[in-house]
Structures are given as structure tokens and as C-alpha cells.
């Protein structure tokens, strides 16, 4: 093992760890006064790390040259794609969080540090080449996430969200670990290449199948795919809105990346064993996400069901088990992250006269008259999530369904399209409330520049102008997917 080469490949992780430790000392000595400064420094670190990942992605890095520490860590194009999205999500969280938390007098210097360490864990997750790296990255991310969900500790709903997330997350971690130990026991390896070689293409032993099922169940919890989605609405609703923004973006990317790596790299020789599980989870997530959202009156809960629904569509890409399917899934994932950012930044801008957050959908009525700009942006997000053609959200669904049809999963694609029509109902309901109902005149409050800039940038990406990026996005997603298949 060439230690120096390994250290070069893990530069992003080292940068985040060292700057996290230094900023922790700053936080310890200067207290919460330094919270803004630490946030700005953390955003700078995250942007720098995202920039570090660009060469690997653009150069389609793959193969043994990208393996660090004996293939426990893989700095290939796939991990670079995931990391750029993860660091983007984390940076946006840090940009929007201070204003929100300040209003509750809850901005503390540890907030950006927890986000930074969570991003470190997620970077390890998408780069994992070994079951141990998978688990350590996942736990690092989850522990930080539990604390972030409960960050408004004087608020009952936030504390409840933190506790629920912690208890259910620990259970999922236990299931995942059980699966990992079974997989190790029946294959004799923890590294993905070793597992793949040991399982071979023949009949899979019952023990290894159990291991696979438990590992997938544990990961399905982390991506909030049905039937392991129960925690999502409560946690999304209870957690502070910037933290919900974080949960809807970065950890989703990390856990989906991990799921793709485990399925393709570790269990790639046994596609039949996991494809049916993924298809089942995809269908159930799409249907539960679409039906569950109908009765919701809180917009954060609505977004939670929308995320379950979208994860289902993304899993269709994985269910294909082909390079085109994974590439389509990555395109969808990138578009979904921007849609989530736009949606939650818009939700953060909804505040009443006392500067308290407005979360009820009924209170949005007549928003088009009081705040036309915000209403347009929110409507663009809703249309985009529904996948209505001129907007960019349509493209993600289109490429995923195209990959499914090419992989002879026509029935799956047909059910997905039918369910997306059900989904369109509740997205359009929000638009209807904003544009056609009498003004409730609830939303007031000035908005700071950072939110406006983020919302405008994300809305332009989602607008038909986004189609100018399709070639570029497909090239990068193709690089990432090919790295996964030519490991």
C-alpha cells in the first residue's frame, strides 16, 4: 500500500477533518459569537472540496489508480459526482441556516461543525469500497444528523424529531450491521470486489441472501424508501427547516450512492437477487409517496412524501441494473437535489408578520397577489416535482423511464407514469391554493439577499433554460456510471 498515494486521493476528507478540528477549537474559545465566521469558513471548505472532486469526474477516473487504502476508499468519477452534490447541499444548508436559527436564538457555533462532519461521513459513504467504510461513513453522517434534527432543543417538535430519528435510525443501523455480518460470514470478505468474487454467478447461498436483504433494508431506511419510510414525514416536519433542507439533499445522495455501489459492485454478480427487492421498494415508494401526500396540510410533510415518491422514481433507474439506468438515476438525482434546494429555500422565505415560519398550505392562499415572485418560484418547483414538460424536472423522469423501457421493465415504467399522475394532483393543489384562492395575507417578512440569490439560481436551473445543461449533465453522469461498472 502506497500511503502517500492514498493520502493524496483522500485529500478532501483530510481537508474537512483538519479544518473541522481547527474550527472546533475556534468555537470552543470564542463561543457562539464566532458562529457566522465558522459557517462562512465551512462553506469555503465545502466549496474547495467540491472543486477537488471536479478533475476525477471530468476525467472519468476509474480503476485501481483511484483506490486508496487497499480499495477501502475509491476516489473515482462516481464518488466525485456524489461528493459534488453532497457538498453543494451541505453548503446551501450552511448559507440558509444562520438567519433561521438566529430568529429562534438558537444559532450555535457547533451547527456548521456538525454539518461539516456529516459531509465528511457522506463523502466516505459514496467513496466506500468496503463494508466497514460503508458503515463508518453512514454512522458518522447519522450521528451528526440526529443531533441536527433536535437542534432547536427547546422546541418540542424538534426534540421529538431528533428522538424518533435516533431510535429508528439505530434500529436500521442494527439491521444493516446484522446484514453486513451475515454477508461477511458467508463470503469471507468485507471488500466489495472480494464479496463479488466469492458469491460468483451461481446459486446464492441462503445466508448470503439474508445478508443482502438486511443490508438493503438498512440502506432503504436511510434513503427513506417504502416500506422503511415511516420516520420521514415526522422528522422532516419537526426538524428546523434548514436541517430539513439538508436531509432532503445531501444524505439522500450519499445513501443512494451507497446503495448503487453495494448493488453494482458487491452484489453485481447476482443482479437477480437484489433487482426484485429494488423493484418492490421502488413501486411501493412511488405509490405510498403519491397517496400519502394527498391528505397533508403542512408543506414540510408534503415535501417529505414528495421525497419518498421521488426516491421511488430514482430506484427505477437502479432496478434496471444497467449502466444506462444508473446514469439516468444520477441525472435524476442531480435535478432532484436542485428541486429540493429551491423548494426548501422558498419554504424558508415564507414568514408571517412576527417573522415566524409559515408551514400550513392553507396559509399560502393568494400568495400570487401578495408575493408574486415567490409564488412563481414555488409554482415552478411544484410543476418541476410533478414532472410537467417544459420544466427541467420532467427530464429526470423521462430519462429514468427511458432506461427502464430499454431494460425491458415496461410494466414498472407504466406503473411509475400512472403514479406520477396521482402525484401531480397534490403538487397542483399547492399551485391552485397560491393562485386561485382568496388571499389569506399571512406571508410577510423581508428576505435577505442570500435566500433570493439561491432561489433565483435554482429556479433558472429548473426552468426550460436547464435543458441547455442536458449534454453536460449526461456526460458527467455517464462518466460516473461507467466508473461504477468498470471498477
Amino acid at each position, binding site marked *: *500500500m502506497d500511503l502517500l498515494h*492514498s493520502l493524496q486521493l*483522500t485529500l478532501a*476528507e483530510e481537508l474537512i*477533518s483538519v479544518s*473541522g478540528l481547527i474550527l*472546533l477549537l475556534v468555537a470552543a474559545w470564542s463561543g457562539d459569537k464566532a458562529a457566522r465566521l465558522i459557517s462562512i469558513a465551512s462553506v469555503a471548505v465545502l466549496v474547495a472540496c467540491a472543486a477537488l472532486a471536479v478533475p476525477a469526474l471530468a476525467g472519468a477516473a476509474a480503476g485501481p489508480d483511484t483506490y*486508496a*487504502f*487497499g480499495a*477501502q*476508499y475509491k476516489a473515482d468519477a462516481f464518488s466525485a459526482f456524489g461528493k459534488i452534490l453532497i457538498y453543494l447541499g451541505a453548503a446551501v444548508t450552511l448559507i440558509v441556516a444562520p438567519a433561521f436559527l438566529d430568529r429562534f436564538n438558537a444559532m*450555535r457555533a*457547533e451547527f456548521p*461543525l*456538525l454539518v461539516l*462532519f456529516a459531509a*465528511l*461521513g457522506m463523502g*466516505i459513504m459514496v467513496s466506500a469500497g*468496503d463494508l*466497514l*467504510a460503508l458503515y*463508518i*461513513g453512514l*454512522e*458518522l453522517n447519522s*450521528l*451528526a444528523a*440526529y*443531533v441536527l434534527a*433536535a*437542534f432547536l*432543543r427547546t422546541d418540542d417538535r424538534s426534540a421529538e424529531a*431528533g428522538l424518533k430519528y435516533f431510535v429508528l435510525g439505530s434500529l436500521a443501523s442494527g439491521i444493516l450491521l446484522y446484514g453486513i455480518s451475515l454477508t461477511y*460470514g*458467508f*463470503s*469471507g*470478505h468485507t471488500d466489495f470486489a472480494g464479496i463479488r468474487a*466469492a458469491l460468483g454467478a451461481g446459486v446464492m447461498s441462503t445466508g448470503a441472501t439474508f445478508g443482502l436483504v438486511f443490508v438493503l433494508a438498512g440502506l432503504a431506511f436511510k434513503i427513506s424508501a417504502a416500506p422503511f419510510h415511516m420516520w420521514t414525514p415526522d422528522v422532516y416536519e419537526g426538524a428546523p427547516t434548514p436541517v430539513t433542507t439538508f436531509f432532503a439533499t445531501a444524505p439522500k445522495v450519499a445513501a443512494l450512492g451507497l446503495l448503487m455501489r453495494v448493488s453494482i459492485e458487491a452484489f453485481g454478480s447476482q443482479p437477480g437477487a437484489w433487482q426484485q427487492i429494488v423493484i418492490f421498494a421502488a413501486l411501493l415508494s412511488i405509490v405510498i409517496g403519491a397517496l400519502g401526500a394527498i391528505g397533508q396540510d403542512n408543506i414540510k410533510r408534503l415535501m417529505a412524501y414528495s421525497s419518498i415518491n421521488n426516491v421511488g422514481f430514482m430506484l427505477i433507474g437502479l432496478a434496471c441494473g444497467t449502466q444506462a439506468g444508473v446514469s439516468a438515476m444520477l441525472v435524476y438525482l442531480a435535478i432532484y437535489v436542485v428541486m429540493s434546494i429551491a423548494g426548501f429555500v422558498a419554504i424558508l422565505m415564507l414568514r408571517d408578520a412576527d417573522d415566524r415560519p409559515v408551514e400550513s398550505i392553507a396559509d399560502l392562499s393568494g400568495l400570487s397577489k401578495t408575493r408574486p415572485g415567490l409564488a412563481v418560484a414555488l409554482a415552478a418547483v411544484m410543476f418541476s416535482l410533478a414532472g410537467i414538460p417544459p420544466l427541467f424536472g420532467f427530464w429526470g423522469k423521462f430519462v429514468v423511464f427511458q432506461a427502464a423501457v430499454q431494460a425491458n421493465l415496461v410494466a414498472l415504467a407504466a406503473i411509475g407514469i400512472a403514479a406520477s399522475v396521482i402525484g401531480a394532483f397534490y403538487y397542483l393543489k399547492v399551485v391552485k391554493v397560491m393562485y386561485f384562492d382568496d388571499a389569506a395575507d399571512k406571508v410577510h417578512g423581508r428576505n435577505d439577499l442570500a435566500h433570493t440569490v439561491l432561489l433565483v439560481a435554482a429556479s433558472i436551473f429548473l426552468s426550460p433554460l436547464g435543458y441547455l445543461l442536458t449534454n453536460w449533465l449526461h456526460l458527467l453522469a455517464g462518466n460516473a456510471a461507467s466508473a461504477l461498472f468498470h471498477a
Partner: protein
Amino acid sequence: MIQAFAFYLFAGMMLFSGAVTILARNPVHSVLWLILAFFNAAGLMVLAGAEFIAMLLVIVYVGAVAVLFLFVVMMLDIDFAELRAGFIKNFPLGMLLAAVLFVELFVGIVVRSAGSLQLSHASGTAAPAAGLTNTQAIGALLYSKYLFLFEAAGIILLVAMIGAIVLTHRQRGGVRGQNVSKQVARRPEEATINVQPEVGKGVSL
């Protein structure tokens, strides 16, 4: 032969106490059964020749449960008279568990001296390196092959610590902290005053 006997003893006891852990109605009893389950798992590890993991199980888990108990005893308002009555009532069960543990300890020592259980390996990779105790073998792997993950695990512990502080630490007013240099520098003249009150009048403090 005796290895196989010890294996089934430990494994059977572990499964039994694991089942009772989730079936027992009294949470304190559950915890006691859990200790027994961990103890038997440690016995299995000794049989397999992994004495380091066995000691880890006993120290970390049994120790952690003991500390948890201590916290419960400290935090709850426990009526000690009632506890003593409970002690008499639970004495036979406690003695039984102690006897089981003692017998197992004895069997474990006998078996250990007769040579450890030979495990079959799925591949040759799990076999320990010759001439190393397994503490040395784990240490050598942890600081070379698994260096990256070991350091990352350290960050997890740091995050857990930060999280605990974030969720529980709060600034309270009116707390008198220690100021060592000020306390040491204090002289008797600053701390006491000498007054001569008139008869029938109090002193004002």
C-alpha cells in the same frame, strides 16, 4: 469433545438468556439476563481463541451495563428499605446466575487449557498470523491496513461528544464557578471583619 460440549453450553445459554432478555417483564431483570448473554458470548470468543474480543465484550458491555445501573440508582429516588426486601426476594435468582457463571468460568478454563476450538474458514484469509497473539494481530491491522477507518471512527466519537454537549449544555445565570487563583489569594483580613456592636443591637451583615 470437551470443546464441543463447552461450545453448546455457551451457545445454548446465550440463546436462552437472549430470549429471556426480551421476554422478562422487569427491565432490571432484562439487563441482568443481557449481562449473562454477553458473558456467554465472551466464552464463545475464548473458545475460538479470540481472547482479546472476549475481554473487550466483558469490559465494554458488562462494564457499560454496570455504569448504566449506577446512573439509574443515582438518578432515581429509590427506597432502599424496599430495595433490601427485593434483594432477599431476588437472592435465589442471583445465586443461581452466580453459580452458572462460576461453572462456566471453570469449564472455560479447563477447555482453554485443552486447546481451543478449531474453526473452519470460508477462505484462508481469516486465519490468524502465526506467532502473534490476537491483540498484536488486531493492533497491527488497525494501524496499517485499517488506518483510514480507524481515524474516521475517532471522528465519530468526536461527533458524539459534540452532539451530547450541544443537546445538554446550557448557560445558567447565578452559578458560582471556581476561580482558583482568586480563592488562594484571599487573605483572612478580606474575609472577616471585627465589629463591636452596642448592647441590645444586632449586627448588620
